[in-house]
């Protein structure tokens, strides 16, 4: 490889075909991430609707056997976490980080391309498992259940997740280096946009937590394929140690999926409220606090795994403490929109939708953090409701807000606002109809991950099913809007929303290398080009 960076960048064709090349431009890679992961979101959503079809009636009648059903919900969850949310947010990070900090590309462009190109093989691997007996032990793959199946799907699941973990470590390494080393000189850390703060915290979590998951999965692979007994009680092993290692990653991973969303919301709300963000430093610091606290709460997933009492109390208290930095964020957002001149664009609607539904997820999270309540509803639909309010209500709403907000920058075209609003209403109604009744269902005692249930749960399940299918349908107007607008939408100006971060100083879409002359920050994080003027005045004008 004797090509210089410039040659690699100029070689690919400058039209749609470049998205199918090993291009190293961070914007192309960002779009590759986003389109790939959105495609997989549709696949994962389709699987979710199959699950709802099975649960329409109390009897297990839709799938030929329960093994297939188990495979469908396992692959649904694995896709949504490892192939939709994490890569989607990595896509935003790839596109936005250099643009927001005044860099011309990521620190390691080729590593960046490699990190993306591990995703499609990971996806193909995971989906191919359906042909050899899909993994059926849930996305957590707890042993000994995951060791008992005997089909090849579990091994494929392990290979796929290890591969995707490697990809996200590569991405995180790149993000941290870029953020730390490649900011324009006028941007000290207290002038970094909040999305950058959020990605910095997220990347630190990814870098530190993902290898531990890899370690656990390697040991599990040994158990599965070489028949060792690390996690197999039959040979003296201990499955609970797997749970510890798994949640040491997977609890922080919740913040990997939600912190970038927090960052996006912190960018979007001020722009459409025409007010500066309230409590910039508090939000920045709370991102880091959440990252740190995220590492000492993992065992709250294991209150019913035989965890000793004193340890459960410790994890209960630390889990509840996370509500403090999260609450700081929520109150800052509310204070930001308070008294603002709100513009209800689709991006703003999704941001406000995020605020309302994430609040529900956060509150049910505090409920679940308390040991006695958790023991009562553990592995019921209450937990399913909570996690969907956090991960769909939090992350997916934020992702949609981000798409509506940055679509003009990414594609150079404006999205249709009317269809965006139709999309929002359908999503919001479908989402709440689907997931809110699950709280009730869980309190009534319906366990998760079952194909058959007591007939008394039927009505609620039908309601949830209607919401679920509505949620599936709600993606159609978005999809049509995005495809149509990308091809033939009105051309976007450089700064359609009158935003104040650096990415809007570039043309839409930004050219290779982003700027002819790099921009200079003058006062704070949200005031490019306004020498000496008070940013608060500018944003209010």
């Amino acid at each position, binding site marked *: 490889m004797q090509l210089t*960076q410039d040659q690699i960048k100029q070689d690919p064709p400058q039209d749609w075909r470049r998205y199918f090349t090993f291009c190293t431009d961070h914007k192309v890679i960002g779009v590759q991430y986003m389109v790939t992961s959105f495609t997989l979101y549709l696949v994962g959503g389709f699987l979710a609707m199959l699950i709802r079809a099975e649960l329409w009636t109390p009897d297990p009648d839709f799938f030929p056997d329960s093994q297939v059903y188990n495979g469908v919900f396992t692959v649904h969850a694995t896709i949504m976490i490892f192939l939709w949310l994490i890569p989607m947010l990595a896509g935003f990070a790839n596109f936005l980080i250099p643009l927001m900090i005044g*860099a*011309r*590309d990521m*620190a*390691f*462009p080729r*590593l960046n391309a490699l990190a993306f190109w591990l995703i499609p093989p990971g996806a193909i691997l995971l989906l191919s498992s359906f042909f050899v007996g899909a993994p059926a032990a849930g996305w957590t793959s707890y042993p000994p259940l995951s060791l008992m199946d005997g089909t090849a799907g579990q091994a494929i699941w392990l290979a796929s997740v290890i591969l995707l973990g490697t990809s996200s*470590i590569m991405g*995180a*390494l*790149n993000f*941290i*280096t870029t953020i*730390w*080393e*490649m900011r*324009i*000189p006028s941007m000290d850390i207290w002038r970094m946009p909040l999305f950058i703060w959020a990605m910095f915290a997220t990347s630190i979590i990814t*870098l*530190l*937590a*993902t*290898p*531990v998951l*890899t*370690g*656990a999965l*390697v*040991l599990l692979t*040994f158990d599965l394929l*070489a*028949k*060792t*007994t*690390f996690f197999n009680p039959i*040979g*003296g*092993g*201990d499955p609970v*140690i797997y749970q*510890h*290692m798994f949640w*040491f990653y997977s609890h922080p991973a919740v913040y990997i999926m939600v912190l970038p969303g927090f960052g996006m919301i912190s960018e979007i709300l001020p722009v459409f409220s025409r007010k500066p963000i309230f409590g910039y430093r508090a939000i920045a610091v709370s991102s880091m606090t959440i990252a740190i606290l995220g590492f000492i709460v993992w065992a709250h997933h294991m209150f019913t795994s035989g965890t000793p009492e004193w340890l459960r109390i410790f994890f209960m208290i630390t889990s509840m403490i996370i509500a403090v930095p999260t609450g700081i964020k929520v109150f800052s957002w509310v204070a930001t929109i308070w008294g603002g001149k709100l513009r209800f664009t689709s991006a703003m609607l999704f941001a406000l939708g995020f605020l309302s539904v994430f609040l529900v997820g956060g509150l049910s999270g505090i409920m679940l953090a308390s040991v006695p309540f958790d023991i009562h509803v553990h592995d019921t639909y209450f937990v399913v409701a909570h996690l969907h309010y956090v991960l769909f209500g939090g992350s997916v709403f934020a992702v949609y807000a981000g798409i509506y907000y940055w679509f003009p920058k990414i594609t150079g075209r404006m999205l249709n606002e009317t269809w965006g609003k139709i999309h929002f209403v359908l999503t919001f109604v479908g989402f709440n109809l689907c997931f809110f009744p699950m709280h009730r269902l869980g309190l009534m005692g319906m366990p998760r991950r079952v194909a058959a249930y007591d007939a008394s749960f039927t009505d609620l399940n039908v309601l949830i099913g209607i919401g679920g299918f509505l949620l599936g349908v709600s993606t159609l107007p978005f999809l049509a809007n995005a495809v149509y607008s990308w091809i033939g939408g009105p051309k976007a100006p450089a700064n359609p929303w009158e935003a104040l971060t650096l990415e809007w*100083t570039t043309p839409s879409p930004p050219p290779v*290398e982003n*700027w002819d*002359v*790099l*921009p*200079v920050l003058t006062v704070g994080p949200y005031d*490019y*080009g306004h*020498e000496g003027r008070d940013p608060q005045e500018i944003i209010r004008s």
Partner: protein
Amino acid sequence: MVANTGEAGAVAVHHMDHEHPDLRLFGFLLFLISEGMLFVGLFVAYLAFRAVATQWPPAGTPKLEFLIPAANTVILISSSFVIHRAEGAIKNGDVQGVRRWFGITALMGAVFLAGQAYEYFGLIFKEGLTLWSGLYGGTFYVLTGFHGFHVLVGLLLMLGVMYRSFKEDHYTAEKHFGVEAASVYWHFVDGVWVVLFLLLYVIR
């Protein structure tokens, strides 16, 4: 909107420089941190397996060889000093010196691997301790095998640097990221071994 100053132009040049050694070293250190977390995860898992076992080492487990791993520890620690000389050499532009010190380090690494192979051979064929001998054998071979694999990668890195050093001006007093990376990686592998030695052979 955008100030067109000479300063910004200079910045542009700086940011184009993806070969900037500080940047790459920073990224490489982050990579090592993630590698370190992989080992930390496995170490903590080992301690947890030890804690749940009723007896450690389990009854009937062969006694681990002490002399060879102790000698290996000495070899690895001294090799860290040797490879440090290579860094000093390249800072004076002495590519010959890099090859010499890398050569000696690689040799010491190879001796380490040979010692480990000898130890494995004895344990497997004479004592009957295998990967399948419960948690004891399993954790022992996974941890030491995983570390041994890292030693091997370190050797390959050094050989790669030595091969490249024959190209005219590939490494200079100013530009020698490859040398630095191989060296930092080797220190890391040594550090991991010291912890591993304490865990597996000393506290037993």
